[in-house]
């Protein structure tokens, strides 16, 4: 290609493909933060937190701008170092990616607001590294969502994992043990993913997601392709804590510090679920593998088993965080159910649940963190009567709990609504029944806790030490999330019609619009 002709072609290609700087701008503040916060923080400790907060806020701002830009103008692309894809690495943001990125960044921002005070109270010595690791975690997660390159995703995957392992190791005395186990299993998962990528590269010669998708659609069924799909599912399932690969999660969430859990629990497993959606539906030929070859059925049944195992284990727990950890296993499994059912409504339910569960779980973990810090209560029986002494905190908790059970008009109800609708469309009545029955299990452990929290404790009239609402900075995210759970529920149709209906893969469209 001669120079001028080539340049024009590149420009035309660029304009038609929605080139924009926005995707990299979402990542850049976090990247700069990763470098500046440890550096400047070791010099002046007090600067670490404000810098972190600014980085998160900027990232969230750009994430929302990206979301609106994608909704209006279609997918956005940014080529790193101007090497055009498929040779170069690009960031490719479609509606789904922008949606998940926005959710992750806003949840992270809210937790960061909480963390300002929480970290100072829980881990004053390691404040600077803690914030540094939070930035690393978010960098990795955001990168994973926005990238359009398979290997680049692996790199960001491991970056986020490193942040995760480090954050999980801070906290309880036993935390490093569970963090190490998570490290082994998480690396195993990422390695399986990498193997899957390896096979894909062997078969298609490309690493760009869109490119690979195009090539795969012409390939039909190929044993190597099936193997690579299975490896990816296993790897991502490990990171997502899909049954039966969920065993690392309860210990890890329980022993980590409350802020670590608050930032990891709502988003890390969710992003792995997002990657699974991205791979299964946007890279591989989903109809072929999920429907015709029943991979979808396997995922579906494993997932519903995960829902029940998680819920039943949660009922038997005596520690608050451990109960919520098992609850997370169950809730992420709902997303697995939606993925496995592989029809538009169920997939919308899964995607919606990514956002909904992130909001609910972060609120719940923020509450348990506040309670632990204010009263030292870790076990459920120590929560008795706290509703009166920490009214605002538990107001947020009540809303989030109702959303977890799936009571209208909170957002949890609508996730289940779409999943159930999806199941009915496909005639999967047993699955529908199981989804509904699992809500009852969730109701058991949440209502039991609510009953305990709001009852009077016999024979105790004075407040135990420190039993009052935490400071405004810690309360604000809890309340915002509690109200948010209601608002997201009432206005879920906006998300579904404006955002998610555009986020569906090829060959799927949402009825009723």
């Amino acid at each position, binding site marked *: 290609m001669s120079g001028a002709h080539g340049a024009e072609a590149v420009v035309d290609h660029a304009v038609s493909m929605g080139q924009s700087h926005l995707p990299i701008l979402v990542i850049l503040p976090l990247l700069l933060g990763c470098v500046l916060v440890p550096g400047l923080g070791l010099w002046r400790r007090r600067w670490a937190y404000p810098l972190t907060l600014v980085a998160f806020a900027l990232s969230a701002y750009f994430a929302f701008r990206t979301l609106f830009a994608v909704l209006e103008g279609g997918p956005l692309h940014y080529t790193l170092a101007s090497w055009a894809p498929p040779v170069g690495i690009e960031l490719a943001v479609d509606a789904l990616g922008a949606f998940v990125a926005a959710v992750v960044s806003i949840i992270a921002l809210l937790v960061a607001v909480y963390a300002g005070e929480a970290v100072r109270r829980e881990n004053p010595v390691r404040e600077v590294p803690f914030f540094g690791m939070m930035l690393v975690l978010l960098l990795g997660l955001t990168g994973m969502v926005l990238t359009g390159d398979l*290997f680049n995703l*692996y*790199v960001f995957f*491991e970056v986020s*994992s*490193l942040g995760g*392992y*480090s954050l999980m*190791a801070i906290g*309880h*005395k*036993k935390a*490093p*043990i*569970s*963090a*190490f186990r998570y*490290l*082994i299993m998480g*690396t*195993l998962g990422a*390695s399986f993913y*990498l*193997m899957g990528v*390896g096979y894909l*590269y*062997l078969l298609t010669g490309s*690493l760009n997601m869109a490119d690979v998708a195009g090539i795969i659609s012409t390939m039909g069924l190929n044993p190597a392709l099936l193997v690579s799909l299975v490896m990816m599912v296993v790897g991502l399932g490990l990171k997502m804590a899909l049954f039966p690969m969920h065993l690392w999660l309860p*210990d890890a969430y329980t022993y980590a510090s409350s802020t670590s859990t608050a930032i990891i629990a709502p988003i890390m497993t969710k992003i792995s679920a997002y990657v699974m959606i991205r791979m299964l539906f946007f890279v591989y030929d989903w109809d072929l593998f999920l429907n015709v070859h029943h991979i979808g059925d396997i995922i579906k049944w494993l997932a519903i088993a995960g829902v029940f195992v998680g819920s039943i284990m949660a009922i038997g727990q005596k520690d608050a965080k451990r109960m919520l950890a098992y609850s997370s296993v169950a809730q992420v499994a709902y997303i697995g159910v939606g993925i496995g059912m592989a029809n538009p409504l169920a997939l919308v339910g899964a995607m919606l649940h990514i956002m909904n569960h992130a909001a609910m779980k972060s609120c719940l973990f923020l509450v348990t963190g506040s309670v632990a810090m204010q009263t030292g209560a870790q076990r459920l029986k120590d929560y008795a009567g706290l509703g009166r002494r920490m009214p605002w905190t538990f107001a947020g908790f009540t809303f989030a709990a109702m959303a977890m059970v799936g009571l209208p008009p909170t957002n949890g109800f609508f996730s289940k609504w779409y999943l159930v609708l999806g199941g009915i469309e496909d005639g999967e009545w047993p699955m529908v029944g199981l989804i509904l029955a699992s809500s009852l299990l969730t109701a058991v452990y949440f209502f039991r806790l609510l009953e305990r929290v709001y009852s009077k404790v016999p024979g105790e009239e004075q407040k135990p030490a420190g039993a009052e609402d935490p400071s405004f900075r810690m309360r604000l995210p809890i309340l915002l999330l509690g109200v948010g759970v209601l608002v997201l529920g009432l206005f879920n149709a906006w998300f579904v019609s404006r955002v998610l209906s555009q986020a569906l893969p090829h060959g799927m469209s949402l009825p009723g619009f």
Partner: protein
Amino acid sequence: MNDIFTTLIAERWAYLLTVVMIIIGLHAMMMKRNLVKKLIGMNIFQGAIILLFIVHAYKFGASVPVHDAVLGDHPEAYMNPIPHGLMLTAIVVSVATTGVALALLTLIYRRFGTIDEIELLQKLREEP
């Protein structure tokens, strides 16, 4: 039989080696009690994947992927550089993860005096 032998072992022995390494790595990660051995197993597992990529990059009769005036611009003359580049990154990631793991192990050993999985799990299950 002869066919399988030729195809599987003679022609693709490198991939077979990869499989063997994966099995060793997985076995170590799951079955060994000592945490350091688990870590080594993890490294072996990651090494196997790296090997997979590298093996794929090989071309019969090709040279190293450095441009040579003598060989010219023909792609068949050079090995595929992309997997090499990817695996350099993967090695870096592996090293970083190993570093974090070793830091965790040091911390565990300092706190609990043992890096045996069974003993540590017992300590985990004890009340705080």
